[in-house]
């Protein structure tokens, strides 16, 4: 019957329609699957979550391998509200030790923005170890809850808070400018945590987790084939001597001030103490912001790191600088004697009838007229004051004053050695002379130095003319410390001119202003100073290095409002020297006096105004 059917050819039409539809589909598929890229991106962005795998932060040890900072496990209880099933609320609250009201409040928080019923959020932060193990045991009863470990910084000895610094969430500005950091990441905010952030943090890994349409995790993508592992942060070995640091902080208790000690032969910082201080464990985890605000409001300002950020007039300790420059410039020799009185700009510089001291005696007795005169002579060696001043400034800068030492602790102050421009502005251009600025010669006036600079200067003297940049980290596990800490920085003073200073500073301790700090079995050198303080009692300064031959430690002690350098600064330095060199303390009476002593400012009242020290 098919033969002769007039419509047989219509099979082609019907067949062509089916063929055309399939052809159109194949073209469309070619567009969607081969040409279009947006759909692939869309698919990945909704089905993949790139979960960061945090690297463990590096530990920090002291120079003897004792722990300064390590990581402690903490546990957060997380909740995904949509996954909660048949929760026995009473039992749950009992286990966690909370009441029903708290439970409801936290649940509400977990479902509201920015949290979501489908996403895990923190239900209870930083559970105690026993609480977390109690919950872990019963976790199977509470679907929708899980415990997430994380690490918190732990400071076993509660010292060196300012140096170690603290860790906190990155700021939005950092997230915007950095390729590495993302919201919620932690980073070092101050101290070593900040300056060695790159070494400490390690490298975060990424886990690709597949998510379903309800934002529920569905395991890792291709069994983790495309995941990257976290690389743990590097451990650091600090130059600090933990025992010595602890002792220094104890000695500084109930006083305002700072102790910095450096190993002269390496520039390694042995002590960097500031007082008042705080327990670094206060600035960890969830309690951080609350405690930070408390510390910030404290009128004693415990967050302030005096060792690097307080600038004091160096007082008489600065006389050594003049002694060195004057020798280098040929203005003084060891035997130069100058009269113990000096009138300049119509002002009589008082002294204590030293007669006509030679260079050694002038340091030993800390003769003010001697150094005002010497300073004026240094400046006036050149016909123009500016030239003389610049020459002097060059020498002073070479000793690390008025410049940043470029240490590895952040927020270091440069101190103050005024510029020519400053005096031009203050007195008028060309209208200032040596007589206008003579007080610089005895470390008063505009000059300012940080305790770190003073300690470095002391180390420079101990080294007879060079220093290594003081630094706090001596070793990075699997890394290298910066080259700059291996370079000697020479002063502009020749080595031979330091001999007389050595000798004089020894005499200061043997039979001078620091005789109360003398240790019978250790010979050491030092120089006291008093920093004039317009706000109250003068600050007591002492720099020292020990032992006299082949010095192992150079330190600077600053006690605010303590008056004479010898009263507090000298005994503290002396005790630290004994402790460091012998490992014990023989002078227990002195130790007790220092530990118990309270030297806190009495505003607006000066106990004494003597300039002798």
């Amino acid at each position, binding site marked *: 019957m098919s033969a002769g059917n007039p419509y047989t050819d219509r099979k082609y039409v019907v067949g062509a329609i089916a063929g055309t539809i399939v052809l159109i589909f194949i073209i469309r598929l070619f567009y*969607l699957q081969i040409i279009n890229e947006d759909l692939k991106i869309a698919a990945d962005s909704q089905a993949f979550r790139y979960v960061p795998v945090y690297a463990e932060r590096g530990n920090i040890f002291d120079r003897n391998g004792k722990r300064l900072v390590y990581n402690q496990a903490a546990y957060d209880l997380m909740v995904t509200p949509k996954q909660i099933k048949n929760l026995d609320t009473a039992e749950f609250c009992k286990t966690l030790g909370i009441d029903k009201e708290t439970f409801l409040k936290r649940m509400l928080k977990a479902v509201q923005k920015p949290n979501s019923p489908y996403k895990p959020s923190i239900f209870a932060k930083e559970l105690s170890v026993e609480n977390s193990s109690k919950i872990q045991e019963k976790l199977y009863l509470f679907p929708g809850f899980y415990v997430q470990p994380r690490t918190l910084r732990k400071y076993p000895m509660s010292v060196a808070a300012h140096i170690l610094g603290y860790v906190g969430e990155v700021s939005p500005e950092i997230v915007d400018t950095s390729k590495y950091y993302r919201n919620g990441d932690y980073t070092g905010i101050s101290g070593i945590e900040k300056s060695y952030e790159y070494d400490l943090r390690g490298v975060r890994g990424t886990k690709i987790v597949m998510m379903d349409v309800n934002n529920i995790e569905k395991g890792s993508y291709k069994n983790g084939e495309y995941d990257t592992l976290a690389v743990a942060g590097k451990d650091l070995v600090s130059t600090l001597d933990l025992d010595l640091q602890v002792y220094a902080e104890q000695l500084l208790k109930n006083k305002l001030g700072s102790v910095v000690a450096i190993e002269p032969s390496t520039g390694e910082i042995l002590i960097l103490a500031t007082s008042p201080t705080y327990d670094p464990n206060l600035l960890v985890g969830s309690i951080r912001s609350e405690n930070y605000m408390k510390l910030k409001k404290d009128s004693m300002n415990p967050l302030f790191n005096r060792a690097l950020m307080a600038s004091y007039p160096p007082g008489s300790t600065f006389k050594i600088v003049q002694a060195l420059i004057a020798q280098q410039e040929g203005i003084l020799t060891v035997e130069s004697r100058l009269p113990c009185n000096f009138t300049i700009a119509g002002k009589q510089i008082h002294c204590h009838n030293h007669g006509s001291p030679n260079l050694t005696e002038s340091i030993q007795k800390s003769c003010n007229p001697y150094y005002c005169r010497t300073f004026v002579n240094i400046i006036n060696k050149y016909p123009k004051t500016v030239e003389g001043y610049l020459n002097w400034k060059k020498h002073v800068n070479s000793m690390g004053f008025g410049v940043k030492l470029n240490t590895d602790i952040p927020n270091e102050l440069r101190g103050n050695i005024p510029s020519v421009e400053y005096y031009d502005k203050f007195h008028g251009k060309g209208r200032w002379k040596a007589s206008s600025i003579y007080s610089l010669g005895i470390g008063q006036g505009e000059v300012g130095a940080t305790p770190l600079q003073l300690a470095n200067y002391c180390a420079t003297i101990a080294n007879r003319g060079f220093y290594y940049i003081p630094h706090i980290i001596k070793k990075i596990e699997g890394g290298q410390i910066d080259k700059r800490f291996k370079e000697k920085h020479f002063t502009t003073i020749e080595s031979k001119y330091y001999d007389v200073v050595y000798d004089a500073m020894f005499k200061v301790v043997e039979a001078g202003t620091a005789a109360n700090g003398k240790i019978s079995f250790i010979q050491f050198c030092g120089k006291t100073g008093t920093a004039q303080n317009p706000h109250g009692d003068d600050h007591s300064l002492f720099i020292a290095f020990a032992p006299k031959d082949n010095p192992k430690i150079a330190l600077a002690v600053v006690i605010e409002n303590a008056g004479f350098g010898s009263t507090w600064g000298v005994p503290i330095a002396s005790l630290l020297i004994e402790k460091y060199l012998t490992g014990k303390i023989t002078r227990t009476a002195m130790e007790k006096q220092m530990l118990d002593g309270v030297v806190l400012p009495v505003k607006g009242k000066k106990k004494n105004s003597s300039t002798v020290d």
Partner: protein
Amino acid sequence: MRERENIFQGVDWLLIVIYLVMVMLGWMNIYAAVYNEEHKSIFDTSQKYGHQLIFIISAFLIAVTLLFIDTSIFTKFAYPIFGVVLFFCIAVIFFGTEISGSKSWFRFGSFGVQPAEFGKFATCLALAKYLSTLNIRLTDLKTKIFSALIVLVPMGIIILEKETGSALVYAALVFVLYREGLSGNFLLLGFLAILLMILALIFNTSVLVGILVGVSFLFFIVSRKTRRNILTIIASLVISSVTVLGTNFAFKQLKQYQQTRIEVALGILEMTKESKKSDLWNSYQSMVAVGSGGLAGKGFLQGTQTKFDYVPEQSTDFIFCTVGEEWGFLGSTFVLLLFVTFIWRIIFIAERQRSMFSRIYGYGVASIITIHLAINVGMTIGLAPIIGIPLPFFSYGGSSLFGFTILLFIFIRLDSERLLVLR
């Protein structure tokens, strides 16, 4: 036994092989689409893939049974079968279980039966029976009306079941009528009407009517101005204008979700955040799944979009998403070519029948599979509005698999006797 051997010798093995391949591919893709880590076995009968295996085995039994049945049953009982199926299709409206707004399911425990899926082969049988009757000519108005009724009655009943999508499938039988002598103008007019409806939804109504008037005026100028021509032009203008206005009116009568689906397919709506969970979202997600497959796909069980429920109904209506995502452009093209080969083979076989009944039935099979393919894959790749109909042999579900298996194997059985009988 002798008879059985005969039967297997006469069947078209190519169709059977393609059928088997498609059913197996379907099963595999259902497994991937609803893959459950806790029930890894593809034979796990607590899961959809386990169910589908039971359906497949049952379908094979149905297929073999059909090959044993004397073909005269189909011809003799075409109308009674049609009647019984229609009866159930009506009964389900009153006694069925309501599932998401439609009443098309009889439920027995965890399994359900959808009578409409069986309406397709019954209608094909009835249409074949009627058109193969002696002295029936499609050029006669009476024949046209009766043929139309055979198609429109089940369509109407299924619309009453609120299964508009399934009802639409019956429109494909116009190809059967076309093959049997219905003027090609009907196809052309149908095509133009659809085009006009689409334009009516996309463009402003008054602008469109204005254009129609302009076009008519042009025809008027260039035509020989006989009375007959003028009347035709005026009639066309009126009908097309009514179509435009009617489309817009009818569109507004649709439910909001139906309107959205159509607007999405026409590209009127843009994807926004707010459209999540709406039909726009579904359409978008299915395209994302297909598009993310790339050239060669993500690999078996490696798809994320369907497996993790981004795509709705991923085992039934949107099963092609899994093919697209896991097997990529190559896999999807393979499946499409498989279908077109299948359809062409059916047409080829239909044409070689001596029996008119078998030929007409064969065209019915081809038409129905074609329209299912067109709508199902079309909606998956954003070329057709979301109309919930299954992809033959692939989609999860017993009723649909049984329905298509019966539809196909009656044809294979008829074909196996092509040399013996003359009807």
